[in-house]
């Protein structure tokens, strides 16, 4: 016996782009464009062509249903339309076309701390933020102590939040949001707050929410969170639903998306956020011991992961690093090209130019399975230029690995060759 909580049919959202020319931003523009329009009145067709060129469908033909009590994950790259979809579902913006029905109150957490006012105290902000997120005052009264306890800022509850550390601020903001109790909860990447311990606590809280039979739509870039909290997942790409399926297979599908050439990821200019400058990632490759680009490596062979990038300006303290995760989202390791002290000293400054940072992964390290490579380029405590946690996936084939004469699966992400001594007592 199931009930439908969300049902959307053929939802689409069109935005205008290149607004600077088309949409007047100031009254002066408005007047001049209207004068021009008057001049163009007789050539209507021409104007319509201009309009079509300046619009983009952020979402197109989105149809899906969510049953009451279901926790649905939504994954997709930046710009795939995830946020737009959540905005439509939470009624922040209207669809351009299509129809949808939602049964129940929708609570949206598109960003924690929405409406927090820096001049107000923690206590005052709990009430204000609660009201903004749709809680009744009675509800906030009854949950106040719980919210404060969860946030761990009891001592500063009567201090203006502008004096809070950023961690305290986020903890308080998340605590208010986590105590919302709408029938349908729409969550966008809010778990990436605070320190590791608080994140664990948040995850636990979200797990509880999911178990209370509430309908949850959950957007995240963190595949391990998606795998942990959701049973089914939608994959969005360029404003369309590519697939919907059981989370593990949807995540695997998503991670393999758009890698035309296996074992290699090349970035186009328009995929790089402007904030990355002067760092410009070019490509990531997996190279076998023979120097070929591969997407399957044998665990008994070593291989290289190569990051190519260009600096348009010199950067001080740059470190280029790799994350390795399993496709289930468990971290395996994190490593940076200047981890070794002598490298750290040699490369305090990098001039502009093209670089390759190559990491050698030794033989007999990884277990069989699929792994995800992520890339990070940052200057410690100064700036994170670029980060992409899902750059490439590859498969490790364990043929010939230690212990393979027993054809049983070995749990664990790594399968190193250890030195064993076997001694017999009494000899």
């Amino acid at each position: 016996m199931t009930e439908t909580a969300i049902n959307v049919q053929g939802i689409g959202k069109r935005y205008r782009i290149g607004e600077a020319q088309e949409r007047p931003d100031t009254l002066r523009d408005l007047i001049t464009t209207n004068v021009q329009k008057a001049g163009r009145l007789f050539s209507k067709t021409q104007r319509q062509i201009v309009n079509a060129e300046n619009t983009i469908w952020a979402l197109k033909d989105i149809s899906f249903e969510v049953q009451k009590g279901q926790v649905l994950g939504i994954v997709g790259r930046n710009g795939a339309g995830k946020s737009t979809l959540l905005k439509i579902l939470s009624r922040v913006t209207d669809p351009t076309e299509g129809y949808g029905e939602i049964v129940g109150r929708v609570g949206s957490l598109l960003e924690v701390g929405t409406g927090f006012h820096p001049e107000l105290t923690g206590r005052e902000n709990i009430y204000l933020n609660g009201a903004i997120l749709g809680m009744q005052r009675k509800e906030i009264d009854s949950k106040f102590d719980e919210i404060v306890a969860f946030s761990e800022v009891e001592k500063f509850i009567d201090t203006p939040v502008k004096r809070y550390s950023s961690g305290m601020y986020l903890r308080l903001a998340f605590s208010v949001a986590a105590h919302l109790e709408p029938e349908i909860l729409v969550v966008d990447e809010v778990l990436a707050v605070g320190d590791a311990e608080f994140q664990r606590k948040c995850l636990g809280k979200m797990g509880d929410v999911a178990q209370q039979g509430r309908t949850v739509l959950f957007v995240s870039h963190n595949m391990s969170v998606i795998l942990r909290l959701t049973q089914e997942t939608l994959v969005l790409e360029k404003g369309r639903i590519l697939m919907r399926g059981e989370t593990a297979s949807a995540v695997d599908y998503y991670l393999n998306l758009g890698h035309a050439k296996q074992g290699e990821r090349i970035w186009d200019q328009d995929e790089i956020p402007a904030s990355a400058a002067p760092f410009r990632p070019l490509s990531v490759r997996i190279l076998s011991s023979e120097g070929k680009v591969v997407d399957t490596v044998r665990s008994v062979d070593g291989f290289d992961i190569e990051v190519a990038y260009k600096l348009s300006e010199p950067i001080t303290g740059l470190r280029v690093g790799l994350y390795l995760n399993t496709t289930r989202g468990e971290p395996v390791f994190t490593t940076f090209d200047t981890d070794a002290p002598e490298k750290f000293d040699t490369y305090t400054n990098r001039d502009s130019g093209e670089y390759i940072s190559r990491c050698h992964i030794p033989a007999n390290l990884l277990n069989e399975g699929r792994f995800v490579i992520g890339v990070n380029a940052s200057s410690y405590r100064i700036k994170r230029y670029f980060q992409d946690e899902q750059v490439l996936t590859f498969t490790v084939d364990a043929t010939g690995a230690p212990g393979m004469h027993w054809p049983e699966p070995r749990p664990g992400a790594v399968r190193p060759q250890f030195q064993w001594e076997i001694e017999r007592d009494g000899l």
Partner: protein
Amino acid sequence: MTAQYDLPKVILRPARKWQGIDFKELWRYRELIYFLTWRDIKVRYKQAALGVSWALLQPLLTTLISWVVFGILLKVESDGLPYPVFVMSALMPWHLFATSLQKSSISLVGNANLLTKIYFPRLIIPVSAILAVLVDFIISFFILIVLMLVYRIAPSWQVLWVIPLTLMAVLTALAVGLWLSALDVQYRDVQHMVPFLVQIWMYASPIVYPISTIPEGIFRTLYGLNPMVGVIQGFRWALLGGTPPDLTMLVSVIVVILLLISGLFYFRRMEKTFADIV
């Protein structure tokens, strides 16, 4: 399951161009109106040493300045009333109107982070901005009472007219504020324009001079096209006596109603795009 029928059902569909006001929904969101108003009041006097006293000081200081400049130096006539009382009785509703207009016209852009993240009836934003100003007005009203006692002017039953007149000043500010705030979302020119608008509007209203300087007849009636003329004239009459409201008042009331209805419709029409273009 009966629960299904108790839950609110929301329909998502492309925005219709014109739509009315959903009063039921506004009522459901009344606590948000309360909290946003409360926030504006709290924040205004945070970290100000004199705190809420500013609600009293502002009209008092403006009165003092106008008294010195217009009453003493320029010797503007005041229908035979003591100039400070004369000017303050007009500055009270004016201050209410001007501040409400300023606050409400920039309110949407000032709350852009809310508009782009959370759904709620957008009307709440300019309305709560004005309500916060109204609370200041009520505080400052007590000074006027004190000032009147000092000059031994006893108000008559007419003083009750202050309530509908205050409402009219608020509605005028809301009407213009709805237009300007919705325009401000797209055209930030509004923020530069409003201070001048308020200044011009002030001199176009009988604040530092009495309405009797305008020749009676058709001119004075047309003068009522500025709705604040009706409000100010009414305030003076209600508090101090003198020229009673006439046809001018009627013109003002009609203008307010027209402005308010058109403002509401324009606002409702534009609000669907706020989150996309703010």
